[in-house]
């Protein structure tokens, strides 16, 4: 057990995976000598050499497509996409090749790729550097999608992702890279890759999130308890598939569901969870599921990003909505109504 940052935990996990399996190779732009723009692969090229830690040409489709070829040859590539907004040139190779090769070959070929994506905002970057593209990939069958929120998960989940015979998109909350925590460098007793984790137990509202907002949600739960509201916080950890058993059990207990993420609302992970939990727990719900998300806008300039990113107050406002307490929608004429008029009045 040692204390390390989330970023260091990923580095440590990568090192352990490379030590354990000579077929694990890292690929990406600037990941070798520089150690990656976030230094997540720091020191690995020095220790494992240029054929295990491959500095690639600047071509995302090229990186992903050659990783597919390496997998055909029996390797387990771990691909780094430098920033979330740079994953789109590789989108075709991910959804048309990586995701489908196992199905296409009736199981004869595995694509045990791990695709690391630093994602999300809050670090004052220019455009293309703060996006949350996870829903594109949760919609693609054949892929697994996970996101980490703390150093221990960062370590265990990168190792589990690499060990998985399925392709895994591993979303790293870049604004939490420097969060510190205790890390046990073993997989013994670790939660499986697909399981959600109850971060804080509560009885009034279930608050579901993942990645960078897990810390914010935990803070919101503490703030809510000061007002006498008991919030159960769930870190999904896996976005595809979602561990509905854990979310369902919580909602059956609390009767209320709030989902928060940085990505835009429409067609997002929150929409999927809202629909699925409604299907499964309709008779237990005291209120429609509430989503507190980024807006359906291109990521805004950094001076405005604090408006876009859900923060503690917006999440608490969502909790109030689920509890039918006074909230930001209460001031409109048709308060507490979900009628068309009220939605129109709320600018929705």
């Amino acid at each position, binding site marked *: 057990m040692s204390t390390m940052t989330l970023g260091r935990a990923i580095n440590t996990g990568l090192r352990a995976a490379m030590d354990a399996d000579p077929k694990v*190779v890292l690929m990406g732009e600037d990941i070798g000598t520089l150690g990656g723009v976030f230094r997540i692969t720091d020191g690995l090229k020095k220790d494992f050499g240029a*054929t295990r830690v*491959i500095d*690639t*040409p600047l*071509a995302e*489709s*090229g990186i*992903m*497509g*050659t*990783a*597919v*070829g*390496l*997998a*055909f*040859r*029996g*390797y387990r590539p771990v691909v780094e996409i430098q920033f979330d907004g740079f994953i789109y*040139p590789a989108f*075709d*190779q991910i959804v*048309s*090749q990586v995701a*489908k090769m*196992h*199905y*296409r*070959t*009736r*199981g*004869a*070929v*595995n694509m*045990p790729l791990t695709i690391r994506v630093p994602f999300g905002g809050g670090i004052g970057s220019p455009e293309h550097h703060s996006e949350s593209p996870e829903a594109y990939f949760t919609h693609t*069958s*054949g892929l*697994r999608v996970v996101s980490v929120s703390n150093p221990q998960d960062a370590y265990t989940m990168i190792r*589990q992702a690499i060990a*998985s*015979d*399925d392709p895994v998109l591993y979303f790293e909350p870049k604004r939490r890279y420097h969060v510190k925590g205790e890390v046990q460098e073993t997989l013994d007793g670790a939660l*499986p*890759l*697909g*399981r*959600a984790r109850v971060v804080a137990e509560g009885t009034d509202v279930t608050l579901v999130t993942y990645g960078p907002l897990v810390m914010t949600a935990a803070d919101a739960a503490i703030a809510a308890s000061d007002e006498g509201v008991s919030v159960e916080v769930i870190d999904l950890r*896996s976005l*595809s*598939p*979602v*561990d*509905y*058993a*854990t979310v*369902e059990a919580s909602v059956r207990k609390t009767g209320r569901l709030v989902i928060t993420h940085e990505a835009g609302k429409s067609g997002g992970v929150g929409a999927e969870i809202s629909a699925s939990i409604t299907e499964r727990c309709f008779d237990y719900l005291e209120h429609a599921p509430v989503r507190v998300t980024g807006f359906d806008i291109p990521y805004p300039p950094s001076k405005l990003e604090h408006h876009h990113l859900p923060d503690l107050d917006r999440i608490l406002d969502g909790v109030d909505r689920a509890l039918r307490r006074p909230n930001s929608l209460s001031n409109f004429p048709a308060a507490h109504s979900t009628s068309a008029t009220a939605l129109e009045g709320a600018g929705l």
Partner: protein
Amino acid sequence: MHTPVRPPHETGATAAGPYVQLVRPDGSRVASSYDHWVEDVDPDQLRSLYEDMVVIRRIDTEATALQRQGELGLWPPLLGQEAAQIGSARTLRDSDFVFGSYRENGVAWCRGVDPESLMRVWRGNAAAGWDPATVNMAPAQVIIGAQALHAAGYGMGVVTDGTDDAVITYFGDGATSQGDVNEAMVFAASFHAPVVFFCSNNQWAISEPVGLQAQVPIANRAPGFGIPSVRVDGNDVLAVMAVTREALDRARSGGGPSFIEAVTYRMGPHTTADDPTRYRDAAELEEWRAKDPISRVEALLRAEGLFTDEFGTAVAARADAVAAELRSSCISMPPPPALDIFAHVYAEPNSWLENQQEEYARYLAMYGTADDAGHPVQVHGTDPVGSASTGPREAGDRA
């Protein structure tokens, strides 16, 4: 017939120009610096190349007929490209790996893919026809040019492994406009990957002539990536063999990638859904018919006294036998069981999919469809006839 009028940039200037040729259309030999690459080809081997070409043309004819009869959903004919496919594929070792497009059915035949497996995709029974590991050939690729990157990556793995295996990737002239093919050349050159880029320039990307893809011969591009290239008469099986052997030799000896532009012609439609009379001049087809790759080898064999009536009859009989086998195996191929759609999406358990399969199995069982209920499959794993996951609804992941 109406001759389509095309703007200057669409004219086929890139079809012209010098290329490696060892046999003229009339069957006479041309002296070339490439002769030594095929000097070991003896009469039996030459006859066997002819036989391969006749057989795959016969496969093509039969498959086209099966499509017209409603037995196949689609078929991409290779008529006219027999020399390019056979000449290159017959130079490969078993341990080499092939990443082709959807048209390399002749290459697949050379790799040992049986007729039933060849038909499976086009009949709609499966997304891929064969197990890549048994023939060292990736499944047919539909996304244009995507496979070139897979070849480059596989080649990078070969370099790391330190073996002398080679990789060959096939694509058409249209694919050379795709980013993936260009990125593949960057990666292969940078990492000295033992990849042979084999462009079958058949002059047409569906209705778009090669002039819309390139203003100079396509082979001219590769040197810009640091990759040596050669243009070859793609209808001359010996010339294709010669340049492919040179490229493979370079790959095996650490010389890195090579690029071959095989100048050929797709005499039929792009696929059976295409109508080339809407965009192609009939005179152009006649011009290329005179360069037919099979009649050229026959002329060569006759000129050298190697073609007897008995031999011709035997080859035709072999081709007919393959076609008959292809037809019967195609027609008798049973439709896959319904729950097969859930198999092999993931290698490991997936709760979302398990739930969906279970719900659909219940739905089917409601109608008592014995066939569907009687052929359960696993959601994951490699056994397509394993038992279905019929346990209680369970979320989460047992991985």
